[in-house]
């Protein structure tokens, strides 16, 4: 028997009207349950973000994460400071422009994860002790840690899981820290600087000076940001329907740039730790064939924006040799902090230090409305003052 139903097919819901509302339980444990439990037992000190000094954001499964606004202890990145100094300088510059207090410590080491992900010439106790020595120092200095490096951020979150779950490791680390005269402290949140940029995007937009509406941007999300301890990365229902991290794309959209997608967004940049130093043929091949050329073909962007040290380095520096082979490359690569700082009128050389980058970024600056010739002359004038001994260093006042 057949029947005819009088159903009007409404068609599929438009993407803009679609929203996936998670009803089930969150599939991952919440680290704060163990963190505060250990604090209650007197095992650790939890370094809290001051009340009224944070913005709340959503993470992958809808939990809230606190992002401190100011009074932050800047856990610098060796790759940024060493080879891309405009990266970290731009982070500090943004804080200064927004009027937020911060501390740039000398009593900080890197996470030393080069000896974890690259050479494995370390062990869990040493790695955890390094992390907590830095956290204890921040606590004693009275500032909340803000991590500049994506790898340090991911590594510290993995270390947090190990510390919270393994009494033996906690005991080992405590014995080491006792010898240093430092307490066993863990911050309430592990926060990456790009999460701060994301949380501050409306304030940055409010101070924007350049029109970026004709600047086409592709984003490379850093692996160690969103693939390690995945549930702690920022997601936003208004960006990619909440199906991809919102960090970086959020600030690009807020600044009104033309954010474009490409098919290999999830791929790594090719950094590989060991590889970028001793097997660069691999890093270069992956970065150009799987990332830069795909972006070129699918979006033809004016710039790639990313948020980790290794990603800027690999995507930028790999293009020179590929260009020599007539590959379809030639996209400048900047960090979100540099892009945001430029949008707010930062000096491209005194602050953003773009002369440390490999790919020619002058066409990008022209599109952004920056007079790079004038800016370079201003920078060289300052360098001459340094060389002549008139000044010892370029000060913030000179740069601002």
């Amino acid at each position: 028997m057949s029947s005819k139903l009088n159903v009007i097919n409404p068609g599929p819901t438009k993407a803009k009207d679609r929203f996936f509302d998670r009803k089930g339980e969150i599939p991952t444990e919440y680290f704060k349950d163990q963190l505060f439990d250990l604090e209650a037992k007197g095992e650790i000190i939890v370094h809290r973000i001051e009340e009224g000094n944070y913005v709340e954001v959503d993470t992958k499964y809808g939990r809230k994460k606190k992002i401190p606004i100011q009074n932050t202890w800047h856990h610098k990145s060796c790759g940024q400071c060493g080879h891309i100094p405009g990266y970290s300088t731009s982070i500090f510059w943004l804080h200064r422009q927004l009027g937020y207090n911060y501390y740039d410590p000398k009593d900080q080491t890197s996470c030393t994860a080069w000896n974890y992900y690259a050479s494995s010439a370390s062990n869990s106790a040493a790695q955890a002790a390094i992390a907590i020595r830095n956290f204890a120092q921040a606590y004693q200095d009275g500032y909340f840690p803000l991590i500049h490096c994506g790898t340090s951020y991911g590594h510290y979150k993995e270390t947090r899981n190990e510390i919270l779950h393994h009494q033996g490791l906690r005991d080992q680390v405590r014995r080491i820290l006792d010898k240093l005269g430092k307490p066993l402290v863990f911050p309430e949140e592990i926060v990456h600087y790009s999460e701060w940029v994301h949380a501050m995007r409306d304030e940055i937009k409010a101070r924007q000076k350049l029109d970026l509406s004709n600047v086409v941007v592709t984003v490379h999300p850093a692996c160690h940001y969103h693939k390690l301890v995945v549930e702690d990365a920022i997601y936003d229902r208004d960006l990619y329907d909440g199906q991809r991290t919102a960090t970086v794309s959020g600030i690009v959209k807020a600044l009104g740039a033309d954010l474009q997608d490409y098919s290999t967004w999830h791929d790594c940049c090719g950094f590989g730790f060991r590889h970028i130093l001793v097997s660069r043929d691999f890093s270069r091949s992956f970065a150009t064939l799987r990332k830069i050329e795909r972006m070129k073909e699918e979006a033809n962007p004016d710039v790639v924006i990313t948020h980790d040290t290794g990603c800027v380095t690999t995507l930028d520096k790999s293009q020179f040799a590929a260009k020599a082979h007539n590959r379809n490359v030639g996209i400048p690569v900047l960090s979100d902090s540099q892009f945001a700082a430029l949008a707010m009128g930062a000096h491209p050389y005194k602050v953003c230090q773009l002369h440390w980058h490999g790919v020619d970024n002058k066409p990008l600056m022209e599109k952004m409305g920056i007079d790079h010739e004038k800016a370079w002359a201003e920078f060289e004038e300052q360098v001459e003052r340094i060389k002549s001994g008139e000044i010892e260093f370029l000060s913030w006042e000179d740069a601002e």
Partner: protein
Amino acid sequence: MMGSIYADAKYQDVPVEEKERLFQEVKADMRWHTTLYGCYECGICVASCPSARFYDFSPRVYAQVMAREDVHTFYELLNDSMWDCSQCFSCTRCPRQNNPGGIITIMREVAVKNGLQSAKTALQAYSRIIYKVMSTGTQVAPDMLQPDFFPDWGPDVVKVSENLDSWRRAIPPETLHTTELAWDVSEQTQLELYLIWKLSGNLDIIETLDEGIFMILSEVMEELLEEHGYDLDEVEVII
């Protein structure tokens, strides 16, 4: 213990007991239990893996070999392809929640700790970095940017190296006015770093891996520790 299921298996001369010992050392690591839950053989990890595109390398093989406890193939992976992994953790896209990159992290540590020749060879060109990280607490130093080390990074490296001192001083944050370190690390912090290397047994790992680096590192550490009233030999490993 049966032999390898592969007729052309390598390392047949290595006693199975030795392979089993190293395998058990990997499994005894506290991180092991959160790295492997089984394998659907779907290949998502391989499709996500950058190393799989350019090397004879497969994260799926690691999950499967470890799950079926094939110590012979494990020993091959431990010595042959393990160092090709990029440690990007794209493989954590696994629908079974496996972490092949995490398995490899543990395997690498076991290889280094046991002083395997394959690990020494893989890290031969890397010893300078190990020394830099452990002696200064930072790795990527501005003075690494030399054209003979990075000839493939283009003419900008030449410009940076020629202007290194003045360009470093033309960066506003005062912690970055350095050329040999990524930033200015205080002496007290370096001292604490050295104590961590010694107390945690990390220095012993370096002695097993590379005696030359161990000697140089010990000398540098001794000097600073002595200035502050410590005797390196008397600081005992406490873990």
